[in-house]
């Protein structure tokens, strides 16, 4: 009886994982699309009441596999990644701390409520503000779910460039911030503190319990994120149908587009994954890939809720500095894409 329960606990998430991955790969390889997005004329014909529903349903049918896969992967990572080991590496080493911060950030912060505590921990523990900022910026922009979703909805190229560029920018911004006198003052404040290392004896659990826990974490993420995604998709449907394409082609392409893309993300708080849907709609309207990239990098890095949380720990001066540098970084990434890959999505 116990064995059967254990089997089911381990089997459910694994089976869903294989199923969604299989469908995901199959639809990529064959170009299979269950339903096409309606054209702008069709959307206008639906009228403003029906449009958001049809648009949202179309999205769910198109992207269910990518979404399921993304949420399951996030659950696996959140539950199975050796957090204890990663956290102790992150707070103890100095020279490679920047690199570790970028590499571990997406693995440690599946849920945004973990991000600021780890940031605060790194600052207070005297691990250096540079790696802490790197961590803070890399986590949302290189978010595993967002990358998978970007790859499915927009393109693999944009997803990969988004990931790599976000990591490089995070390192660059963290390093520059750490060189300022503001950062040094702050570091001096916490340098002399004696930092205890927690004694950690985690409860041991069987693999099936852990897989089941990861599945529950996926479920939790779905409950937290999906309502916002659906609401976001509904709002995006209006933009897709009613924003004149001329506006997208004239403001969201070329150099102006890159700059605007990087800057709009600052005041506009888009919940995770919604930025991808928005870009996909703007892509149909004529946004250039380099502007899209700038937006996809700049937006998540400068989210207002996280900036407010961080300002309580390091003050507004440092927050403004890192946000400005992140926007510059996003513009540079957009420019680089523009010159190297041009208009290829």
């Amino acid at each position, binding site marked *: 009886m116990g064995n059967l329960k254990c089997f089911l606990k381990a089997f459910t998430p694994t089976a869903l994982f294989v199923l969604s991955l299989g469908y995901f790969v199959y639809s990529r390889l064959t170009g299979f699309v269950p339903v096409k997005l309606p054209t702008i004329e069709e959307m206008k014909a639906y009228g403003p009441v029906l449009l958001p529903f049809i648009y949202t349903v179309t999205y769910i049918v198109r992207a269910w596999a990518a979404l399921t896969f993304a949420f399951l992967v996030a659950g696996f990572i959140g*539950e199975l990644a050796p957090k204890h080991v990663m*956290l*102790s590496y992150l707070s103890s080493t100095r020279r490679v701390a920047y690199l570790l911060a970028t590499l571990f950030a997406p693995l440690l912060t599946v849920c945004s*409520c*973990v991000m*600021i505590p*780890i940031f605060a921990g790194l600052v207070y523990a005297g691990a250096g503000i540079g790696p802490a900022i790197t961590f803070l910026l890399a986590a949302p922009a290189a978010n595993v779910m967002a990358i998978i979703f970007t790859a499915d909805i927009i393109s693999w190229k944009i997803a990969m460039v988004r990931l790599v560029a976000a990591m490089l920018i995070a390192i660059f911004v963290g390093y520059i911030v750490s060189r300022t006198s503001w950062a040094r003052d702050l570091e001096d404040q916490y340098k002399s503190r004696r930092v205890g290392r927690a004694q*950690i004896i985690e409860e041991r659990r069987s693999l099936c319990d852990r897989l089941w826990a990861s599945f529950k974490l996926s479920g939790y993420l779905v409950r937290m994120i999906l309502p916002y995604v659906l609401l976001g998709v509904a709002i995006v449907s209006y933009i897709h149908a009613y924003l004149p394409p001329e506006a997208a082609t004239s403001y969201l392409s070329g150099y102006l587009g890159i700059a605007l893309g990087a800057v709009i993300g600052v005041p506009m708080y888009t919940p995770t994954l919604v930025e991808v849907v928005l870009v996909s709609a703007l892509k149909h309207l004529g946004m250039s890939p380099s502007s899209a990239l700038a937006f996809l990098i700049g937006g998540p890095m400068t989210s207002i809720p996280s900036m407010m949380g961080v300002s309580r720990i390091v003050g507004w001066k440092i927050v403004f500095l890192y946000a400005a540098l992140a926007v510059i970084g996003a513009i540079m990434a957009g420019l680089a894409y523009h010159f190297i890959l041009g208009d290829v999505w």
Partner: protein
Amino acid sequence: MSEIVVEVIGVEPPCPKCRKTLEIVKNVVKELNIEDKVKIIKLDINSPNVVARYGVISSPSVAVNGVIKVLGRVPEKEEVIRILKEAIQSHG
């Protein structure tokens, strides 16, 4: 009889996961009828003092008598029961 201190370390204001963790711990203590032996403390993970004691950890975490037992996740009810029973035994 010495007291068992259970610290639930989370974000302040509490995030949903931290709230859930605190709720589970409270319910278990009530169910096991050990309210007089166990003291539950809610700690803010973003405070320098908590970091000074526990270093960099992720939320929510549960510590029993200064030892972290659950790191960065919501524990199962059965787990908390096991942890608390063990703590009571070792304290005699």
